[in-house]
C-alpha cells in the first residue's frame, strides 16, 4: 500500500518496507511492511517501546545493518533514489546524519572531539585541516558549546553528557545532511539537559532546513518537536498523524494505552496507572491478525484472524478495526467488559484490564 498525500516530492518515502533478521528460530520480522513519507524540512517522530522496530527501521534505511543476517525488501526512496538493494555508503556522512542515544558511547573515547567532528569535513568536503578546524569552531558556537577552540582538543570524557550530545549534533551539522536521524537522543540525559538538547535539535533543524526523524519511546518528547508522529508496535505502523491531531484523537488502542501507562504530572498523587498487560509479540512467529490484539481491551475475534488494514482519516491513519472513541470501539469495549474478557482471553474487571 502506498501512502502519499504529497504534491512536492518527499525526501524519504518508504513503501511496504520490511527488514527481517535471520535467527536460529527463523526470520525475525523486525520491520514488517512500513510505509511512510517524510517531507523536506519536516520532523517525523517515531514512537514505540523497545522492540517495536523503530531503531531497526532507521538503521535499515541507513544501511547500517549487517548484511549477512538481514533481509530487506519493499521500497525505500531517498530523494527519489531507491535504497533497497543498493549500497548506501555514499549517503553516509553526506546526505544523512545520525545521532545516537548515549553520547558517551557514541563518541570515540580515544579521539579528540575536534577530530571527530572534522572527520566528515575533511573526508567529504575536502577541507584542509585548518579550514576544518575553523568550521568546527563555528559549528560549536552554533550548538552552544562555550570556548569552542579549547573544546576541540578535549576528549569526550572531559565533557559532560549534555556537552557530548552537543558534539554529536555538531558532527551531524558538519555533514550538512538532508536528513538527520536522532535515535533516542536524550534518553540517558537528565531532564533539564534533555530539554536543552531537544530544543537545540529543533532549532537547528529549522535553521538548516533539514528533515529530521526523531525516535523516542516517550510520546511527550515527540510532542512539540515533531510535525508528525508515527507509532510503531511489533514492526507494524499502528498509527500515524500530525502531532496535535494525534494527541487530540488517539485512535489506536495501543497509542492510547501507551500514553496512559505513564504517570503524568497533572495526575493527583497515587493515581492508579493503567499498564499494558501481556508482553510484546514474538516477531519471529508473530500472531495472525492485529499484533496488539492479545493485549488490547478492544480486541474482538476479527482482530485475531485478520490484520487490520490502514484506515485513513485525512492526515490521520491507523490500523485498527475498533478505534478508540469511535462507536465501533466503544461497542467492542463494552462487549468485552460485559463478557469479562477480550477475544484473546485477556480478563477485564470493572472496565480495567486485569
Amino acid at each position, binding site marked *: 500500500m502506498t501512502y502519499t498525500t504529497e504534491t512536492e516530492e518527499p525526501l524519504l518515502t518508504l513503501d511496504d518496507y520490511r527488514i527481517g*533478521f*535471520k*535467527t*536460529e*528460530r527463523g526470520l*525475525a520480522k*523486525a520491520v514488517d511492511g512500513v510505509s511512510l513519507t517524510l517531507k523536506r524540512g519536516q520532523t517525523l517522530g517515531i514512537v514505540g517501546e*523497545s*522492540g517495536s*522496530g523503530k*531503531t*531497526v527501521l532507521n*538503521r535499515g534505511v541507513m544501511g*547500517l*545493518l*549487517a*548484511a*549477512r*543476517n*538481514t533481509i530487506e525488501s519493499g521500497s525505500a526512496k531517498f530523494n527519489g533514489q531507491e535504497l533497497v538493494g543498493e549500497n548506501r555508503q555514499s549517503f553516509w556522512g553526506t546526505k544523512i546524519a545520525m545521532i545516537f542515544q548515549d553520547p558517551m558511547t557514541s563518541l570515540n573515547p580515544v579521539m579528540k572531539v575536534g577530530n571527530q567532528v572534522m572527520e566528515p569535513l575533511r573526508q567529504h568536503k575536502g577541507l584542509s585541516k585548518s579550514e576544518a578546524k575553523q568550521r568546527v569552531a563555528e559549528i560549536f558556537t552554533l550548538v552552544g558549546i562555550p570556548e569552542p577552540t579549547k573544546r576541540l582538543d578535549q576528549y569526550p570524557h572531559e565533557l559532560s553528557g549534555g556537552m557530548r550530545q552537543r558534539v554529536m549534533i555538531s558532527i551531524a551539522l558538519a555533514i550538512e545532511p538532508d536528513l538527520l536521524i536522532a535515535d533516542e537522543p536524550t534518553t540517558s540525559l537528565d531532564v533539564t539537559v534533555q530539554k536543552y538538547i531537544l530544543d537545540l535539535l529543533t532549532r537547528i533543524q529549522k535553521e538548516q532546513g533539514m528533515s529530521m526523524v526523531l525516535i523516542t519511546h516517550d510520546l511527550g518528547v515527540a510532542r512539540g518537536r515533531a510535525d508528525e508522529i508515527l507509532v510503531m508496535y511489533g514492526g507494524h505502523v499502528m498509527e500515524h498523524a500530525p502531532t496535535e491531531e494525534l494527541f487530540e484523537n488517539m485512535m489506536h488502542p495501543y497509542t492510547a494505552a501507551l500514553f496512559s501507562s505513564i504517570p503524568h504530572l497533572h495526575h493527583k498523587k497515587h493515581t492508579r496507572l493503567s499498564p499494558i*498487560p*501481556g*508482553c*510484546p509479540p*514474538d*516477531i*519471529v512467529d508473530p500472531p495472525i491478525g492485529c499484533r496488539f490484539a492479545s493485549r488490547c481491551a478492544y480486541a474482538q475475534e476479527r482482530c485475531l484472524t485478520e490484520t487490520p488494514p490502514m484506515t485513513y482519516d485525512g492526515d490521520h491513519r491507523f490500523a485498527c478495526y475498533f478505534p478508540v472513541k469511535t462507536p465501533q470501539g466503544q461497542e467492542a469495549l463494552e462487549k468485552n467488559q460485559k463478557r469479562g474478557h477480550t477475544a484473546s*482471553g485477556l*480478563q477485564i474487571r470493572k472496565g480495567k484490564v*486485569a
Partner: protein
Amino acid sequence: MTTYDEETRDMNEPVSEDSTELGSLDASLAVGVAPKKQLGFGFWLSTFWVVLITLLAVLAPILPIKDPTENYIITETTENLRGDLVEKPVQPPYSLDGNHWMGTDKDARDMLSRSIFGARISLAVGFITALFGLLVGGALGMLAGYFKGWADKIISSIFIISLSFPGLILAILVVALLDRSLWTVSITIGVLAVAPVGRLARAQTITFAEREFVIAAEALGAKRSRIIVREMLPNVLIPMATLSMLVVAIAIVAEGALAFLGLSVQKSATWGKLILIGSDINTLESAPWIAFGPIIFLFFTVASLNYMSDRLRDFYDVRDAYDLYD
C-alpha cells in the same frame, strides 16, 4: 491467569558476539529474541576425551595394554656374512603396525601404553596442582577481596611478588634443588598457580562484594560468614571451577616443559618426557611418531581442558578473562 502478566522478554541479555558487522545492531538485541546458551557439541566431545583419558590413566595397570617398560624386541632370521641363517634382533624403533598402534620408541617399548601410562603422571600433576592452587589461591584471594584493608594489601603484595618471579625459572630451581618426585613437581607448579588463581578469586570477590545483592543480604541482617558462604562463595566458585580446568591444562603444560628440560618427575615417564625422548633431530627424522604420538595426547588433553574452561566461562558468563597464567 495471574494478576500480573509475565514479561517474557529478558531485557538483560548480554551482548552476543553474533554478527558484529562494525557496530551493526544485533538481531537478537533488536528483536529481543536471545539465542539459547548452550555448551555445545565441542564441549561434550572435550569432556568425553578428558574423561576417557582420565579413565585410561587410572585403569592403566589393569587394562589389556602392553607393558610400558618392556622392550618388545623383534627378531628376524637373516643370513650372516658366512651365509648362516641366524636370528637377529631388528633394530628398533618400530613403526606403527597392528601390534604397536602408535609404534615403539627406540627401546622397542610400546608408545601407546607409554602414552597412557604417561597420562597417569601428567594428569596427576595437573590435578594436584589445580587442587592446591585453587584451595590456597582461592582462599587467599577471597579473604583479600572480601576483607580488603591490610589483609588485602599483604596478600596482594605476595601475589605481585610471586607474579614477578619468572615462574619456570622458579620451578626448575626448586625442582633441581629438591628431589624430583610427583609431589615436589606438583606442589611447585601449584605454588606458581596460587597468585593467578588468587587474583582471580580476589577480583571476583570484589566484583561480587560490590553487587547489590550483597547489600541486600546485609540489609536482611545476614551475618558476614553467611554472606561469604551463601552469597559470595557460589558466585566465586563458578569462575574458579572454570578456571580450575585451565589450571589443570596449564599445569600439564608446565610439567611438560619441566620434563622437556629433563627436570620433571624422575621415576616415571610423563608426556613431556616422552616427547623429549623423541625430539632430537635424528629421531624426528627417522621416527617422528615417537614425539608426535605423545604430542597428540598432550595436545588433545590440553585443548579439551582449555575448551571446556572456555565454554563454561561463556556459559556462566564469567566476564573476567584469565588466560594470563602460563
